[in-house]
């Protein structure tokens, strides 16, 4: 396969995944700020959303004021000058898809193209209700893409590069959510059980669509260390770091077998998977949740770089 084709497949799926993660973050934030002031706490949740999206600096440069609903929704969802706004993510995804149409199945192309055609009809200045509809549309796009690629693509390198893009992006998104919110997950006795943090935890779960899953897995009330466990170590949870690496490692092994050659990316993925398999939440809290997550984000970027170097350049 052409390196450029692999590169386009990988970024196509990364951008679709990114759009979906942004939609979930916006959705969860909207819910959280809608609560009465007493539950809202001192933090500016819109600012947190910008931080989770990883664009504090560019947001500040553009608006030069404190984040609020209007500016954040505009910037994260629609702004043409934010390369990672949802709109730009979907545009870039389709551009990549067009460039590699021959490597996609008709159904997969159709999923992307149909949603792009819809996107063209949407006008700026949406009401809250319309925005909520828009966020659903973004999630549907990602579902349609994921579903059609899962159901129709051959299980060969093209499919694996699509999966790798999704998983690297997803691991990054989950880690960023944890990074911004790690302070409410620390087992700090003073806050435990307080109504304020309860809604923060619930919001974290919502941003990874795991509110129901949580109850199925733990069968008890929302506890911060369990939320952290679910998002970091629990392999049943498809957005957890452990699950992402279980699959990254698997698809990279598939590629290595297909091409008959191992490389740096296989080694890095396996090392991280081993690290996550051997860790417990106690260890992680002990050595510092924040440090753990910061180092994970760096490692995950390194794996992305290794994949690029090994296959896409």
């Amino acid at each position, binding site marked *: *396969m*052409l390196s450029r084709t692999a590169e386009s497949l990988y970024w196509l799926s990364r951008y679709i995944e990114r759009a979906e993660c942004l939609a979930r973050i916006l959705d969860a934030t909207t819910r959280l700020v809608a609560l009465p002031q007493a539950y809202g706490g001192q933090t500016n949740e819109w600012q947190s959303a910008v931080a989770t999206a990883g664009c504090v600096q560019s947001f500040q440069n553009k608006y030069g004021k404190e984040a609020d609903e209007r500016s954040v929704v505009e910037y994260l969802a629609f702004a043409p000058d934010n390369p990672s706004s949802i709109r730009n993510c979907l545009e870039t995804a389709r551009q990549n898809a*067009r460039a590699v149409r021959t490597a996609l199945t008709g159904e997969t192309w159709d999923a992307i193209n149909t949603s792009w055609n819809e996107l063209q009809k949407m006008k700026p200045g949406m009401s809250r209700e319309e925005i909520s509809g828009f966020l659903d549309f973004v999630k549907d796009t990602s579902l349609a893409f994921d579903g059609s690629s899962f159901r129709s693509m051959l299980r060969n390198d093209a499919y694996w590069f699509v999966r790798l893009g999704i998983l690297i992006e997803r691991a990054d998104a989950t880690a960023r959510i944890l990074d911004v919110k790690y302070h409410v997950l620390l087992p700090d006795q003073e806050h435990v059980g307080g109504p304020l943090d309860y809604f923060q935890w619930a919001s974290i779960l919502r941003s990874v669509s795991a509110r129901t899953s949580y109850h199925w897995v733990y069968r008890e009330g929302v506890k911060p260390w369990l939320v952290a466990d679910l998002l970091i170590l629990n392999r049943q949870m498809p957005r957890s770091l452990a699950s992402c690496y279980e699959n990254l490692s698997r698809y990279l092994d598939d590629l290595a077998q297909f091409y008959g050659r191992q490389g740096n990316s296989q080694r890095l993925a396996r090392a991280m998977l081993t690290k996550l398999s051997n860790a417990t939440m106690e260890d992680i809290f002990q050595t510092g949740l924040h440090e753990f997550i910061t180092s994970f984000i760096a490692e995950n970027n390194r794996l992305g770089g290794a994949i690029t170097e090994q296959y896409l350049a």
Partner: protein
Amino acid sequence: MNGPGGVRPAYAMLAKWLEATPREVIDYRRREAEFIFRRIGITFAVYGNAEAQERLIPFDIIPRILMADEWKKLAKGLEQRVTAINHYLKDIYGKREIMRAGKVPEDLIFENPVFRPEMNGKPVPHNIYVHIAGIDVVRVNENDFYVLEDNTRVPSGVSYMLENREIMLRLFPELFIDHRVEPVDNYPDELLTTLKSVAPVSSSGEPNVVLLTPGIYNSAYYEHSFLADKLGIEIVEGRDLFVKSNILYMRTTEGPQRVDVIYRRVDDDYLDPLVFRPDSSLGVPGLMSAYQAGNVTLANAVGTGVADDKAVYSYMPEIVKFYLGEEPLLKNVETWRCREKDHLKYVLDNIDELVVKEVHGSGGYGMLIGPKADKNQIDTFRHKLKTDPRNYIAQPTLALSTCPTAVNEGVAPRHVDLRPFVLTGRNRVRIVPGGLTRVALEKGSLVVNSSQGGGTKDTWVLDR
């Protein structure tokens, strides 16, 4: 259609069907066709039109129909013409006998910007220059097809031939049962066979064929990706390729892989920045030297522009006679070459009755249709003709045949032309029965180019 009210026999059955089918059904199918086109993303980019960056070419659901005999005659003429063109190009870049015989003026070739001196004395694999030709023809009466234009560089439009048929089969299955239409969907196989047959002698094993595109912003990108998909070959851009020791490779996830044949959809100018335009990043540095060393085949060859320039066109009957010793089966439209003094005088005197075209123009840009032009436009062209006569030719406006077409007012005659695609491989010419029919949707208009608002139709060749 055959004069006012007359219907050619090929259309008899269709006419009956049209009469029996209610307007609403036809309108409904029209909308359905448009929906399908948009959904599968067959679009066409129009240069200089940012808002309509991806536009649909209007599709007309009423097919253009040819009887088996009409087609057979046309196909023979096409094969003859393209065979002569290949002889001519080999001669131009080789012995130049046609110039020595005084049949084609030397300056027309040597001073032509599309003549490529780099190709002088460099044989191309299997002596084929034009592997894929799109010959635009029109019929003006019962018996005669005229060639409007030979497209021997990178002719496009074949994806519409294939997609239009797909859509017709989906929308009107009942019509196909009555009509027995020759299939066209073997075109990709024929093309791939043609391309593989011209692999360089130095390549070993199954030849690796790729399609070279300028990229997703090119107006024909949809077609490039469509064809690569149907052929099952990689669609590459210049940056995917590199040359080492005069061998061409592509970058893959498993390391470099040799490329033997390029179906290139990039113009000569952009192929290799070391030889042609240095500012272009679309091509591959070193490609020309690999090509000249005989290690890669370009389809079409470099320098084929000297066969389809509109001034060279006027010599085509001579060219056919010179190389094949046969009378040309397809006619040429009478053409005045403004480079010649007496022709220029005639054109200036009769400009309001003529179509004036730029020698290198295409897509319906840069032309004057005398009978439709206002005084201002005519004055502008008079001035252009006097300052740069070599850049223009002129032709009479033809009484083009029309074909029933679904328009807003119902079904009405509209002017059409036809671009069949002629494939030339080692030892064989292949032509799929059909082509791209383009239709001028404006009443009375003669301009069928998609960039000027023309549409397309499916083209049916019947089995009898």
